[in-house]
């Protein structure tokens, strides 16, 4: 390679790659900045604590916040225990070569790659159409269509399935972080496997399990595609009172308001502010998860 070519490449490769890195940082700042600037003025305490008024052109997003909260709570109640137990199986019980373990890992990897909208389809085809109508048939001979409809229960379960891989991976990581010597000490004292898990492994991985839960909640609060037709609604006169009710949700609200509301320009401020709330929420959750991860890592460096 001639000297000129070499120097040119030697300068431009680091330069361009640096520019790309710079671009990424800048774009993140722009997205965050734009949202803050646009939504800051509309973000008041009243905005967060009252519902929409005047045909959605004024008022607040309180029901959407509550709806999002309920969604992630029900989702976590379903998904975190199942994910934790699966992680316990993979980490503590399964031998590395067992067929069941490989099947489960395949399933987890596949679940992680399924597009969010397909989860929505599954929620519709399985939870609503199959389980829901099945329950209706049992309860009322099919006369009353109560559970075979979109509602917060089916939406939450759909979300739980979507975030299951996140929980499993985080918890497994936490379990593996518990040093082998502790398990050996317990077993050498004559404890059984489950006793060891319950009294030594699990207590020492609680922080990791919490991290997994937080990451799942962050995903659950942010994804909109799975709830588009499994339970979210744009305007409801009251908060969801039962599992068979529909619910308002932050992300869904942003989507509908910015694309389909009758007066898109007038509600811009609300759109920005809602986006800001969602952004702050996910950011706070992700940050706490990162912080917990950091704490785990420094703690186990004995």
């Amino acid at each position: 390679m001639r000297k000129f070519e070499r120097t040119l490449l030697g300068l431009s490769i680091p330069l361009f790659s640096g520019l790309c890195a710079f671009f990424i940082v800048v774009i993140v700042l722009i997205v965050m900045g734009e949202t803050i600037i646009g939504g800051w003025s509309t973000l008041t305490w009243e905005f967060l604590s009252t519902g929409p008024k005047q045909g959605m052109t004024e008022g607040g997003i309180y029901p959407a916040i509550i709806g999002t909260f309920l969604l992630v709570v029900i989702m976590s109640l379903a998904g975190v225990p199942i994910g934790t137990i699966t992680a316990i199986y993979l980490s503590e019980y399964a031998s590395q070569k067992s067929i069941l373990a490989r099947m489960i890992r395949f399933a987890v990897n596949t679940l992680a790659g399924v597009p969010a909208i397909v989860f929505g389809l599954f929620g519709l085809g399985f939870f609503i159409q199959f389980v829901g109508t099945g329950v209706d048939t049992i309860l009322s001979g099919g006369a009353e269509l109560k559970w075979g409809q979109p509602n917060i229960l089916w939406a939450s379960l759909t979300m739980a399935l979507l975030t299951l891989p996140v929980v499993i991976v985080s918890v497994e990581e936490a379990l593996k972080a518990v040093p082998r010597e502790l398990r050996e000490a317990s077993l050498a004292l004559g404890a059984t496997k489950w006793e060891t898990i319950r009294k030594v492994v699990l207590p020492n991985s609680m922080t990791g399990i919490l991290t997994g839960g937080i990451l799942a909640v962050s995903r659950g609060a942010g994804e909109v595609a799975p709830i588009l037709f499994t339970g979210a609604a744009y305007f409801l006169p009251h908060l969801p009172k039962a599992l068979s009710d529909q619910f308002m949700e932050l992300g869904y609200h942003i989507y509908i308001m910015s694309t389909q509301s009758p007066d898109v320009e007038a509600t811009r401020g609300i759109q920005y502010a809602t986006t800001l709330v969602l952004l702050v929420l996910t950011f706070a959750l992700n940050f706490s998860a990162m912080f917990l991860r950091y704490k785990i890592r420094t703690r186990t460096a004995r």
Partner: protein
Amino acid sequence: MQDLQAPKKTETTLQSISTTSNTTTPLVGRRNNDGNSTNLWWKKRFRLGEFLIEKAITAISFLSFAFIALIFVFVFREALPIFSVSPAKTTVEAKQVPQETYGDESSASELQQQVDERKRSVENLEEEGATATNLVSKTWQPVSSKPKYGMLPLVVGSLKVTAVAVLFSAPIAILAALFTAAFAPRWAKELLKPAIEVLAGIPSVVIGFFALIAMATFLQKTFGFEYRLNAFVGGIALSLAVIPIIYTITEDSLSRVPKVMTEASLALGASKWQTASFVVLPAASPGIFAGILLGIGRAFGETMIVLMATGNASILSGDLFQPVRTMSATIGAEMGEVVFGDTHYTVLFFIGAVLFLFTFCLNAIAEVFIRQRLMKRFEGQ
């Protein structure tokens, strides 16, 4: 030593007298040091709690596999009716019925009724006619008197948006990862790592919103195209979601390249950038390729960003600056309005099934790539 008699939860306290092994009831005797095999301290005991817990844990863990199987089953099940309807020729015939009879207002009511009936039967035939021929036609117009379910514009829409996204994000992500791995000073790394994590954590609806409001205007001003929301805008917005994926996998692949390769290259007199570009980067290429595949999968399946930033018009054209409708956006926008079980519903599920299959294959190939090729390359180590 004999004062410590701790009754275990599942033991029975019968004392054993005989040496014959009675395997049906586990008996536990007092432990003593006489080495006498008349006490069965060593006998395997059945711990009910332990057994049940292990079975329960195994069963619950199987749920993830069960659910993936269920997703396959149920998504395909709702899409299956598509294959069980009338053959193509009926469709063609029905389509050729002229529309003139329909619009003649001066005809008598009876004639009108006949015409309406014929129209309805034609429509019904067409409803049934969502067969393979119809699906690959060029028009997607499911909500009309003569619904058309041509998937072509949707597929092309997805392809256009994905292509823009990947072509834009892959070089940026790969180069940025190269920068982190080879050239970045400590402070830059500390800045870049959280930036990527933040970017990865931004919900797609927020990116869509940002694209809809700000990015589209900016791009329109810069490039001067006619329609504010189009495939190009959607693709650029989508790349914000794809960049973290490709970056993370590339960075991981680059760091997995054995240090000995880097050291060997430097020892031969190559400079840092030469080593990074001609040794490390190629060595990590299987991983990078897998990362790109995963990025393609993500872009293809993404819904919210394209719903908000592409203009959502099912136009079939090669122009990047026209609005498009992607497969995922179609499902997202229309499924809420469909009747359970009718043709439109079935077709949407069919699109979903295709989407699922496509991303599944991409992920499978990517995984094989990472594992196999990477292993082969470093076999000699």
